[in-house]
């Protein structure tokens, strides 16, 4: 089942184009990482999906038009827009009461169960909790909702590595199943590398890479080239070249590992390696060139 279907999604703020004809298909049971530099259009895309901003073009989320049906859509969609959006004046118990009061798919016992594993006291005000605890609370609220789509926009911003790891562990072990879909944007790509099933790069309002993680693993290879073989390696048309301690590191797309092995040390790149390769030489410089990288 297709959870999100966007055709020619476009959004401009004055003369600034935030989304420039984005086409997007997200199927049920996927965990999609939407990665891009600041101002690339990630949050605008998510806001359109969540019904928080108007847009041009076609967009259906769970078969609904998000802009006109936001409140009905929110029965099946959850989002954490940022860790700092829980109202600071609210008590933890009030947040449970409120969500239980307004959300038909909220399971309070489940939320209480998640909170029991933390040090969060029911009587505390949210302003009294640490940033990590606020994230735990927000995640407990969201995970207790039987939603079909969960949208996470920089959910772990400002958290230390322990909380970040715990966040994604909880998400995978206690929440995700194959009927749910998750979209996550983050700059901490190393945190989500092993979490994602699909990867999408966005830059200047355009999708510049759209592949499954299986594709990512099979397509891209990085070679630390022996100085004698640099010319031969360049002849294989790497998509990026950088220098590390005097040696050339070249990134290849769709080049056979056996072809590369004689040229130097071959390894799988990380998402951040590919991100830097595609988008690191100045925003948009590779935008046109990597269109071919979309599936």
């Amino acid at each position: 089942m297709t959870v999100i279907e966007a055709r020619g999604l476009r959004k401009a703020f004055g003369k600034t184009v935030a989304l420039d004809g984005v086409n997007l298909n997200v199927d049920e049971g996927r965990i999609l990482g939407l990665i891009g530099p600041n101002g690339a259009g990630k949050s605008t895309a998510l806001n359109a999906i969540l019904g928080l901003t108007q847009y041009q073009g076609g967009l259906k989320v769970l078969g609904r038009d998000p802009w006109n049906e936001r409140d009905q859509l929110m029965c099946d969609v959850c989002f954490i827009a940022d860790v700092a959006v829980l109202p600071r004046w609210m008590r933890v118990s009030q947040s449970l009461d409120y969500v239980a009061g307004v959300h038909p798919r909220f399971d309070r016992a489940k939320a209480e169960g998640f909170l029991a594993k933390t040090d969060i006291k029911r009587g505390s005000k949210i302003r009294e909790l640490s940033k990590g605890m606020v994230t735990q609370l927000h995640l407990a609220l969201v995970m207790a909702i039987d939603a079909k789509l969960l949208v996470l926009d920089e959910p772990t911003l400002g958290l230390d590595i322990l909380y970040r790891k715990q966040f994604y562990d909880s998400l995978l072990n206690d929440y995700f199943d194959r009927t749910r879909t998750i979209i996550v944007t983050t700059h901490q790509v190393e945190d989500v590398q092993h979490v994602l099933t699909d990867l999408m790069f966005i830059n200047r309002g355009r999708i510049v890479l759209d592949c499954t993680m299986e594709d990512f693993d099979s397509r891209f290879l990085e070679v630390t080239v022996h100085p004698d073989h640099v010319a031969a390696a360049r002849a294989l048309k790497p998509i990026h070249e950088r220098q590390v301690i005097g040696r050339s590191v070249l990134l290849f797309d769709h080049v056979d590992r056996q072809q590369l092995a004689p040229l130097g040390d071959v390894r799988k790149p990380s998402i951040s390696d590919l991100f830097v390769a595609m988008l690191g030489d100045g925003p948009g410089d590779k935008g046109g060139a990597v269109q071919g990288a979309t599936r």
Partner: protein
Amino acid sequence: MNTPLNSVPESSVGSQAVEPAVVSETRPLYWSIRRELWENRSIYIALLAAAGVYLVGYTISLFWVPRSMREIVPPHSTPPLIELAMPYAHAGMLIAATAFLVGIFYSLDALHGERRDRSILFWKSLPVSDLTTVLAKASVPLVILPVLVFVIAVLLQIVMWLESGAVLLLTGASTAMPWAPPVFEMQLVLLYSLVVMALWHAPLYMWMLLVSGWPRRATFLWAVFPPLALAAIEYIAFHTTYLATMLYSRLLGFDALAFDLVDKNGVPVDAHFIPLAQLAPGRFLSSPGLWLGLIFAAICVAGAVRLRRYQGPI
């Protein structure tokens, strides 16, 4: 590379489908109003504080009551009703005036606070429509505050009545003569007045609510300055004061419409004790000013709903 599909247990907690509870149409509204009361505790604290201050002052004043009663009442005659009614009327007026100020400042912050602290993103992540949220916020000055004023004023007046009775008994003054006004009748008039004021002031509150959804800061200035500026322009340009008169009437003009301030003998009625016979609900409900105001209030509510749909954090 490991994908999570391999590592996710089949029987994860989340896979147990939750039977969606039936949520009635009014449930989100009820919980939205509750959250307004959680967030804005000043709504009832300010009224209770006003009642407390008045009660302290009134209790101290009771030490002088027997003497003042002797001064104002010749032996074996009836004390003037207005003198008796005055403390009770002032109690109601003080709490109602406090509620008016609370309502104005609440409305000015209603759609601004959630944008300022970014919590609008949390509220919008839940299945509560913008209309429900705005109606919950509108109900605070229009319904919740008048109800609270009535309950607190009634309780205060009952305590005042008991206190004054007790003081008279303890000081040996006669309780045979009237020592309190017809409090129940006063409370019925208070209830009527609160309904009248809520309806009459609805456009003011809803204008403030609308403005709270627009500017990034200084909502008070945005709400107050444009009408005053227009009134000033009118006066400078045409030497007329229609707008200023209209604004003044919107604040205090309800009493001349909702009450007959002259009794059937042509004697002016004192505002401290307005008998039930002097209420004029028919005239009030048929006045164009009321309905034009309510139409303006409805337009402001519709505008606020629309604004909230478009607005995000600031």
